[in-house]
């Protein structure tokens, strides 16, 4: 169990059909698809924090959705604790090739799905929109307990809510739990969102841009909170963001995505200090340095991420790549190992 990763994503593909005209269909043209995620693979160990970094449209959120079973992969697998999430999220563990040591397949479909939801939780981006304005803080955090039937008694229910709120820095809890979300600041709201996820004691948290809506002055404390939760409870966290700098602070490993594919993956510090893919290099170079004396040499890419319907031939980054050569238009590069833990998908990594 120790060596086995908690989460394994294997050759994950997720395509979305583009609505196309009847005429195109009649003349036999293939329906077009959006290549949202195109052959992505990674693992996440127990207690590890992995950053999934990329611009809008890179597919990082889609990966998160597939990991949680909110979407079903077009191809490939997401294995969470040994079980294929595509079956699990539909309550059909019995149909997967899982050996079923624990007898999970005998549970009803609904129970199977609930179990997945309890073990893998999500934190959304916008704490102003993800809390019900008409529910008190206590009820927001207690609701998951009720749905999962996890509280033995009223006092147990209270204790669990108190624990969750206080771990998230809202202490003393009874000072907060009678309030409504509009009585809280943005940072406090996001703490409530995290408490609502933690109350179920999940093993995996997907945090989708959890601090991007907050003021810079309070981002640090939420990132420190996530790190603390990991340290105390050994939870694995998948942190999706477009901000390399915040990811640099508290994640163990980093996967950089471009147009639906991971282009570089490695230990966070190593990727940031020694980026090997030209895309990562450029992303690192444009990070603002908070000092006018140390402005970096910037490699600003022109244009934007191309649309994921008609992908470029060869390396999908070549049209914007500052160092692309002729081969890049023809060959779709495989990963090259830079070190045992660090790999980049570029023909010219060496």
């Amino acid at each position: 169990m120790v060596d086995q990763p908690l989460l394994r994503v294997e050759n994950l593909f997720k395509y979305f059909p583009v609505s196309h005209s009847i005429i195109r269909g009649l003349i036999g043209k293939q329906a077009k698809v959006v290549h949202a995620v195109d052959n992505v693979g990674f693992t996440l160990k127990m207690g590890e924090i992995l950053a999934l970094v990329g611009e809008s449209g890179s597919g990082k959120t889609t990966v998160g959705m597939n990991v949680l079973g909110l979407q079903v992969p077009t191809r490939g697998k997401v294995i969470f604790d040994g079980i294929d999430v595509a079956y699990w999220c539909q309550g059909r563990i019995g149909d997967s090739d899982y050996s079923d040591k624990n007898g999970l397949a005998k549970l009803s479909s609904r129970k199977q799905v609930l179990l997945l939801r309890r073990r893998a939780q999500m934190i959304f981006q916008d704490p102003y929109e993800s809390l019900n304005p008409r529910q008190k803080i206590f009820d927001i955090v207690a609701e998951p307990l009720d749905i999962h039937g996890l509280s033995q008694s009223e006092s147990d229910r209270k204790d669990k809510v108190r624990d969750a709120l206080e771990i998230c820095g809202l202490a003393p809890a009874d000072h907060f739990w009678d309030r409504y979300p509009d009585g809280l600041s943005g940072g406090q709201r996001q703490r409530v969102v995290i408490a609502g996820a933690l109350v179920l004691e999940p093993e995996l948290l997907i945090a989708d841009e959890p601090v991007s809506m907050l003021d810079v002055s309070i981002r640090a404390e939420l990132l420190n909170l996530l790190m603390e939760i990991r340290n105390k409870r050994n939870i694995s966290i998948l942190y999706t963001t477009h901000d390399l700098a915040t990811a640099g602070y508290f994640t163990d490993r980093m996967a950089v995505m471009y147009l639906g594919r991971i282009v570089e993956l490695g230990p966070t510090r190593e990727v940031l200090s020694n980026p090997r893919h030209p895309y990562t290099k450029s992303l690192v170079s444009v990070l603002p340095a908070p000092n006018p004396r140390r402005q970096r040499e910037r490699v600003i890419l022109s244009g934007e991420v191309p649309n994921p319907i008609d992908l470029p031939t060869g390396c999908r980054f070549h049209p914007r790549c500052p160092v692309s050569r002729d081969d890049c238009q023809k060959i779709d590069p495989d990963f090259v190992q830079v070190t045992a833990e660090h790999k980049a998908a570029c023909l010219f990594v060496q």
Partner: protein
Amino acid sequence: MTMLEVKNLSVSYLTDEQVALNAVENVSFRLEPGRSLGIVGESGCGKTTIILALMRILPEAGRIVDGQVIFENRDLFQLSEAEMCKVRWGDISMVFQGAMNSLNPVRTVESQIVEALLRHKQVDTKRQARKRTAELLKKVGIAPERGKQYPHQYSGGMRQRAFIAMALSCNPKVLIADEPTTALDVMIQAQITQLLKKLQRELNLTLILVTHDLGVVAELCDDVLVMYGGKVAEYATSDTIYNAAKHPYTRRLLKAFPDIDNLDADLVSIPGVPPRLDDLPIGCRFSPRCNLCKDYCMRDQPRLVELEDSHYIACHMYSRK
């Protein structure tokens, strides 16, 4: 020569109960032609209110309580509305917060810029207006043919560029940009920052940048005004602010900003939340969150003092002498 000077500006908002809440108190700054100023601070510190007051476009509840805005030797607060209309957009133009969503969705980008040109009598005929629009679009890095398209056919970064083109349409002397890079992807942020830098140099623009992003300010601004709770906390050149800041708030704000060249430094938030306008601390506005707070900080408000050449600070550590 001074291009723009704000003197002792105070602005309040009236609540529904007719109580005046001070959003901005006694703010002063000065800009020479071609210089750039960054106004930074957390949400609610009054940075946008300063700009809206300066342009005289405060919402209905807003009142200018005191102060002057001197632009080329004229006090903007004394001008008639008709005269002010000429100053707005003609002399001082603005890229609003969320500008990429403030283009009219049912009209082409070109027609919106043409309208601004004709209304401000920059050109006489529609034909000239179109020609000028093409030049403007080219200047901000949009192919002129795309002027015929609608905003929804543009990406977020391009809409931001189109709005900047519109803001430049009347050859303003001062450009104000309110959070121009917020909500954009990192690479697009870098592109817009680069564009503003280039335009400022080429057109010798005087630039005011309102933002909470200290990285953009470090790259673009000569001077920095740090606001807290509606008052100036510290005001100095960028080099001083980033390398020799004295105010505890400025120093902590800098520490909260992630810097990948220095990942081993602790990233420390400022505990607590900025003060609410209806519940401002009696003493120093920052005292409830300040780790160096003394009893007199909670009692008395610090004066803004000049430490050395053009380095202003409002903190008892420096003003109680």
